[in-house]
Structures are given as structure tokens and as C-alpha cells.
């Protein structure tokens, strides 16, 4: 693919496995509990740039979690078949870990570069959760 550029990020495995797909990137933290619609698979946080934007099948890339323990709702989207295909975040805590354990998709964090600065929505991303390696095929 002559018109693509590949970038590789190295991070820490949270959940293993391999997955790939199109990126959906949030530069604003994600908030759970009532502000993640578990059945629809999107945020319903008012003012959020990704309001009602489905993350089903996407590689969901975001900065940080914020707010309630109900952040785990991101993981529970799996019960409704609307979960992301991989979960990548710059910095997390046990809320992102619990969400990932519920989501059961390749999950990587603590990267050598800020993933929300490198990856743009629409980039094609391959995630090797076991080795914490993320390959980004940049559009253009």
C-alpha cells in the first residue's frame, strides 16, 4: 500500500489476543455509568465529541477514564454485541482494567507514545495484545 504509512506503538498488555480494525479516537476522556449506553454501544455524555457515535467493531482509542465505577459499562457492551474490537488508552486505573476484563478484547495501555496523538479516527490498526504492540496504518 503505497499511500499508507506505518507507525508502531509499544505498550503494556492488559488483555491478550490479536485484533484489527478501524480506529475511533477520543481525545476527551471517556466517562461511564449513565454516560455509556451499554445496549447501543456509544457514549451519551452530553458535550462529548463522540456522542451517539457507535464503537462496535472499532479499535477504541482514548486518553483516560473519568468518573464513576460504572466505567465498567464499556466492558458490558459485550453482552449486547456492541463492544469495540480492541481497547487502547493512554493512561488508566482499575476502572479501565475492569472494563477490559469484561470486554475481553485485546487491550493495551502505558504506551511509549500518546496513542491519541498518533492514531486518528479512520486509521487501520492491528493490535497484538499479548506483546503490547500496536501497528497503525495511517490513511493518506
Amino acid at each position, binding site marked *: 500500500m503505497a499511500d499508507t504509512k506505518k507507525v508502531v506503538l509499544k505498550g503494556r498488555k492488559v488483555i491478550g489476543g490479536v485484533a484489527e480494525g478501524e480506529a475511533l479516537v477520543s481525545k476527551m476522556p471517556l466517562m461511564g455509568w*449513565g454516560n455509556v449506553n451499554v445496549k447501543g454501544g456509544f457514549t451519551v455524555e452530553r458535550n462529548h465529541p463522540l456522542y451517539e457515535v457507535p464503537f462496535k467493531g472499532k479499535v477504541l482509542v482514548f486518553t483516560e477514564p*473519568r468518573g464513576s465505577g460504572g466505567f465498567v459499562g464499556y466492558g458490558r457492551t459485550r453482552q449486547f454485541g456492541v463492544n469495540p474490537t480492541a481497547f487502547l488508552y493512554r493512561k488508566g*486505573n482499575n476502572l479501565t482494567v475492569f472494563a477490559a476484563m*469484561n470486554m475481553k478484547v485485546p487491550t493495551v495501555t502505558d504506551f511509549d507514545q500518546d496513542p491519541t496523538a498518533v492514531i486518528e479516527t479512520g486509521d487501520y490498526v492491528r493490535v497484538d495484545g499479548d506483546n503490547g504492540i500496536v501497528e497503525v496504518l495511517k490513511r493518506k
Partner: protein
Amino acid sequence: MFLTDEEKGILDGKQGNVAQKCMQFLIAYGDAAGAERLVDLNGTVDLHPGQFWVPDYVITPEEIQTLADKGEKFKVPTFANKATNPGFIFDGWEGCGTLPNSDPEYHKKCMEPFTPWIRMGMVPTFSCDSYLVSSVWPAVGTHSAWVESSAVPWANAILGSRSNFDGCFQTAYLGKAPAYDMHLNENRVATVLVECACELRTDMDYDLFGWAVGEACGLEVPALVGIGKPTTGQIVKMNSSLNTGGQVRMYHIPGVTPEAPTVEDAFKGSKYKKKITITRNDLKRVYELMTYATDDHVDFVYLGCPHYNIEELQKVARLLDGKKCKTPVWVMTNPLTFRAAEMMGLQDTIQRAGGNLLSGACCGLLMGEMPPSAVMATDAAKQDYYITGIVYPKKLQVWYGTTEDCIEAALTGKWRGEWR
């Protein structure tokens, strides 16, 4: 993850099947979190009774019943946060006027599963601020496992105990948690210096300040200077907003909180990564973010996020005394403070004015159960910012202001609050 011989024994089933399952959860969780070992809890646990963080590792009601029958206990003092699965009103539900909570059968059905938890030693505090009434606190330097936005910073910053957001059956039963993040000293050092350049006067100011700092700090550990002398209620509000507008689970107030006698101690001699100044304009910006309404007709007022303490209930009773509300008003507290309010006649005063004193839940926790309304008013940024998502796809307008603004709206049916 490194395991001691005792922990390996638990994993091998030497302390029974339930202990083994609890250990399997802690190991899976610790591995995913990057923890190198477990830590023995010597503080307290605050948990959402009936809730399991990861359903793959659920301990069934039958298993918990069996443990209770055998006389087994939680390893450390354990307190009930709100029940979440489902949430329900603990006191005052008889008059709340909404379903399913005003149905006595519903209340009974919700309470039943917790009998074995209580027999195992869980204190039936059933509140997001159970720490205000728990009668014991973990000592400085102990390891705990708590939950809830306002509670986790209370454990870490105010009490100096070490807690992630991971209270649950497993941590309470084994008395262990993965040793990472807030359990490790190096992660508790301040990284951001926050200077408050305006005077924080009202409870609302602390709520707004917490949100502004949370947004700016995310997962960082701020040292807060220039914030005056907050009351208990103001700290609770600030904590709730710090951990909703952001993910601040630990901070220092030099000279006030136990791990930082001075600013230098807060940073352990290192230079701050970032310095932030919060001005009155920042508070105004958050106030505007919380004002999510245009219709000045108010049809429901919600107070008590986090659950009101006794001083806040006295204030509400004073404002309502001898008056009559035009709109439904719910005033939420924790079950033990509810009992004090009953004895003090505050419940009577609130009820005579047409309000409802309730305990143990909130509209958000009840998945939006509230008197029929298109426009609500509240004095809590946390409840304000979540409730519109919780009632989705229903549209709900939300006014935000001081407790006084909200009470005036309850009495007149009109919103008159404004930025002052």
C-alpha cells in the same frame, strides 16, 4: 504476579472453593493491572453489595449463604455502599410516589439477598458516603479497598489510607488486593500544583472547583493550595466532583491532609509537572456546563448527591420549615443519618412542607426513576452531569445551583438561580 505460600495455598483450594475463586479473580485482575503482588488489607472495605466487577468471577448467592451459615466473616471491617444491582431506596420509599420503589414487595425483594452479607459482617450503611457514618476509619498508612467517586479520595487524601477503586466481595473476603497504583507510595506523590486564585465561599463553589481541577488533572495527583477551610460537606462535594469531572483519587491539601504537612512534602522534594491556577472564571465555566436547561418551570428537585450529612439536612429543614413545596422534592441521605433526622424531627419538617426524605439511593442509581419531569433541578454536579445520560433517549433539562436556589425552585416551581 508473585504469590506467598499462603496465597498459593488459597489458589490451590486449601481454604475452600470460594476462597479459591476469589483468589483467581484477584490474580486475573492484578495481572491485567500490572501488579507485582497482593497486599494484605489492614484498613477497611467499602463495596457495592451484590455487585461483582467481572461477572465471570461471580460468587453466587448460594455460595455466600453457605459461608454465612458456616459463620465465616469478612477479613476487615466492611461497609455497604449503595446497592446497585438493582438500586433501591432504603428509607422513606413508602411515600416516594414512584414505581417500583413505592411497592413494599419490591423493597423486600431487594433487601433479602443482603442478609448473608450482613451476617458475614458487612455493616448495612448502604450509602455512597458510608464513610461519614461508618464509626471506624482506616488509620493513616493502612491498605483499604473502597468504591465510589467521593469515597475513594476520602480514603486516600483525607484519611491517608491506600485504596484503589476496587472494594468488592473478593477483596473483603480474602482481605487482599493487588498492590499497585494508590497502594504504592511513589504514586501518591503530588504531580500538579493547583492554586486557587479565588475565594471559595459556598458549598457550590467547592463542587465547581472540584470539577475544574478534575478536568485539568485527570489521573494526576494535585496539591491544592488556597482553598480555605472547607466544611465536611464541602470536602465531600469537592471529592465527588474531582472524581467525576476527572479521575482524581488522591490529592494533598498541604497543612491539612495527613501525607503533606507542607507543599514540599506533597511533592516529596520533586518539581511539579504542571501548575494550574483556578479562577472565578473557571468556576463560572463549569457552572455553565452544569446548566442544561432553558425552561424556568421546574417540576422536580433532587438534593443529596453525595448523600446529605446531618448539617445539610438541618439546612434543608430550616429552609422548608412552615412552607409548602409546589414541586416534588427528594432529599436523599444515608440510612444512619436518616435515623438521626427522624429523631430530630427533620423528617417531619421536610414532609410537612411536601418534601420526601429518603435514604440509600439516588435518581441516577435508580436508572432515572423520579417523579414525572421534563425539567429537574439539583445542587450536585455529579448527579447533574450523569442524569441526562441515564434517562437517554428521554430528554431531560437540568438546572444547577446552590441548595438555596433548589429549595426556592421547589417552593415556587420556578428556577431563579443565576451565577453570582
